[in-house]
């Protein structure tokens, strides 16, 4: 009888815990990352931040060794590729100088500087995603630096993502390669609009909703669309078209783009203090 009662009490505890979890999921989903749940997240991240930084500093040498060990094959391949590319690049340096000068003059002429007139905050990447099902990074700037949820984040080469969580001195960025991340884009040559979507476990983005009559070429640059209610300012570089496959049976195209920024190598970023009015990319 006692054992039966104990088993019954255990089941009640488990059911209560599961109901609490479901209530939390509902609260968080309805609150859109803000509200009570957002505050709890923000407070707990702030509270644990010093300890996290300390642990990261202490374990950094081991982490770097591990990273080097597990990436040895990739580094070797990358080294070969870089050597090959270096040879090609040297040959292009002379032409590049002329192109850069022309580029600078054109930009000065047309005021086409990168994110012109938008105030920004520089930040350092301090942590990678703790989870396996998301592409996020953490930076050392937060609400007290003017950072808010939804703000675009760029590095020298282009867009890397948007702020998805803010504590007072720490923020989380959802990278454009995250499967839950969609960004409104425009092809630089054809000026056609599309949506670039992150893919789980891949560095490539899938570009959808491309007009069937659009001819997209490999290597074409894609930039943020800046359409009404867009979450990013217009014209920020996003990536380059990596592959285009047109199906024979219909006019559908399967387009993949590679981000201009290597998300594994990001160290410093700039948060654009810009809040769009919409939530769609």
């Amino acid at each position, binding site marked *: 009888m006692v054992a039966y009662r104990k088993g019954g009490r255990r089941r009640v505890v488990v059911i209560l815990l599961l109901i609490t979890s479901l209530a939390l999921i509902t609260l*968080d989903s309805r609150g859109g990352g803000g509200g009570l749940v957002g505050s709890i997240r923000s407070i707990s991240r702030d509270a644990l931040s010093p300890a996290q930084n300390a642990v990261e500093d202490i374990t950094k040498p081991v982490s770097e060794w591990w990273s080097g060990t597990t990436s040895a094959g990739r580094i070797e391949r990358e080294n070969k590729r870089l050597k090959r590319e270096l040879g090609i690049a040297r040959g292009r340096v002379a032409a590049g100088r002329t192109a850069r000068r022309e580029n600078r003059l054109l930009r000065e002429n047309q005021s086409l500087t990168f994110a012109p007139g938008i105030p920004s905050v520089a930040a350092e990447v301090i942590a990678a995603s703790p989870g396996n099902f998301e592409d996020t990074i953490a930076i050392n700037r937060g609400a007290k630096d003017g950072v808010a949820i939804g703000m675009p984040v760029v590095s020298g080469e282009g867009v890397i993502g948007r702020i998805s969580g803010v504590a007072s001195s720490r923020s989380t960025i959802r990278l454009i390669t995250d499967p839950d991340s969609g960004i409104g884009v425009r092809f630089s040559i054809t000026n056609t609009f599309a949506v670039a979507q992150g893919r789980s476990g891949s560095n490539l983005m899938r570009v959808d909703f491309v007009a069937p009559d659009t001819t997209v070429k490999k290597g074409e640059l894609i930039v943020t669309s800046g359409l009404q209610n867009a979450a990013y300012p217009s014209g920020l570089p996003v990536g380059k078209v990596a592959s285009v496959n047109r199906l024979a049976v219909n006019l559908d195209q399967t387009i993949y783009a590679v981000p201009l920024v290597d998300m594994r190598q990001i160290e410093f970023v700039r948060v654009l203090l810009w809040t769009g009015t919409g939530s769609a990319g």
Partner: protein
Amino acid sequence: MDWNGVSRVIRIIRLALILVAVVLLQTAVFPHARIFGVAPEIGLVATVAVAFIAGPAAGSVFGFAAGFSLDLFLQTPLGMSSFVWTIVGYAVGVLQGAVLRSAWWFASALTFVAGLVGGTLFIILGAIVGQGQLWGWSSARTVLIAACYDALIAPLVFPVVRFALSDERPRPASLSSGQGW
């Protein structure tokens, strides 16, 4: 407070310290110690260990606490990990009651299976609550690698949890560690 109460409080404090250590390791160390881009879920491993050593009640409560703590640092809805790990903790605790003796590899095997089940539940729950991006073959690959990684670190985590749950009361050698906290 009698000795039983003191011993219980000591065990709870030890488990709380393990919880803090789990969160710190998961958020500050393991993101840099990935294998094929996948980090282990040390919170799940600790949940399996607690459930296996102390039973379903302790397993489910620890699973809830560990999942909730980790959820605070993830972008997926708060409550997803706690929901899944509560179930895993309870299930492992119930299973533990049926195991009389276990071989040295049992911790790893159990953690591997728990990792597979937990990961799969997480994806299914995600798809139900609007995290459709989790649904796909790449997530299945992630779950498989994470389960292997979890199995690998399980022999390191189990002794720590076993120590945290050890009862220091002087008692006859014939008594087992018993159920609960």
